[in-house]
């Protein structure tokens, strides 16, 4: 009688694969933290540049300061999400508490959702800029 090799029902869901997946996530979390910290440094430098721009003559300094501080806030938010995601992944590996993993994945979702919304706003502003630039060129020829 031929030996029948039992079919492993979990070939796609083995514990080894899950552990390897978490290991990959853990390795990625170190780079995520690195990028987030670089982002925080950049935000700090931008905020400082904004404060120093107050010394510029005329009213331009105030405009530049507001712009730079606004950009600093916009960049800070995804950096924080990225840092929290990395921290959550790290905590999960350390504690093996699945709720930490859920928390980390929630932060990842927030990160990409925020980045996506910013991209869309950027594209809309770019399109409006092109449109008004095109229109003003049209009218200037009359």
């Amino acid at each position, binding site marked *: 009688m031929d030996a029948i090799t039992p079919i492993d*029902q*979990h*070939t*796609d*869901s*083995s*514990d080894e*694969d*899950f*552990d*390897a*997946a*978490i290991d*990959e*996530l853990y*390795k*990625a979390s170190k*780079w*995520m933290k*690195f*990028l987030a910290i*670089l982002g925080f440094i950049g935000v700090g430098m931008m905020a400082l540049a904004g404060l120093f721009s107050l010394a510029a003559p005329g009213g331009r300094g105030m405009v530049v300061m507001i712009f730079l501080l606004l950009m600093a806030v916009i960049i800070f938010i995804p950096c924080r999400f990225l840092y929290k995601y990395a921290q959550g992944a790290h905590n999960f590996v350390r504690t*093996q*508490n*699945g*709720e*930490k*993993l*859920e928390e980390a*994945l*929630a932060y*990842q*979702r927030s990160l*990409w*959702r925020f*980045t*996506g919304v910013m*991209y*869309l706003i950027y*594209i809309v502003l770019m399109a409006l800029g092109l449109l008004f630039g095109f229109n003003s060129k049209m009218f200037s020829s009359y």
Partner: protein
Amino acid sequence: MENSTDGFSVRPDQNKTISVLGTDYLNRTVPWLRAIAIIGFVLGLYSLGKSLVTWDAMERVASIYPIPGIQYFSPAAAILGLISSYFLLMYAQKLGTFGREGGNLNLRKAFTNQKVYYIWNGILAILYIVLVIGFIFWMATNYASLGRGLRVR
């Protein structure tokens, strides 16, 4: 009967895997990842085209560039950005596969692609910092050699 233990979904006939809530978070992330990757591709191609046009114009006008190799910077930056978008798209694809089919193997592949994406961006960030420091150093060196910079006694 599903027992939820510490966020893991553990059934007698099932191995360790991400909980239902975690899977839901990942599924909701996929559309945003895809959108950002595609926008990144489009912007990257636009930047590449624009930088090649600028390079061509500079070649016709300038015989000596103020900074050696500066004409290569913009096209190189655009290509590096395109590669980054590609890695992000791969992550989104694998995560989408995990969302549809499940399975820890698909999850492992997705997280591998995610790791590659962040390693690539980390290397680019380090490269950028090295270039900025190198540029500052080059400027300081060349400024001093022109005789108008710091004088060493």
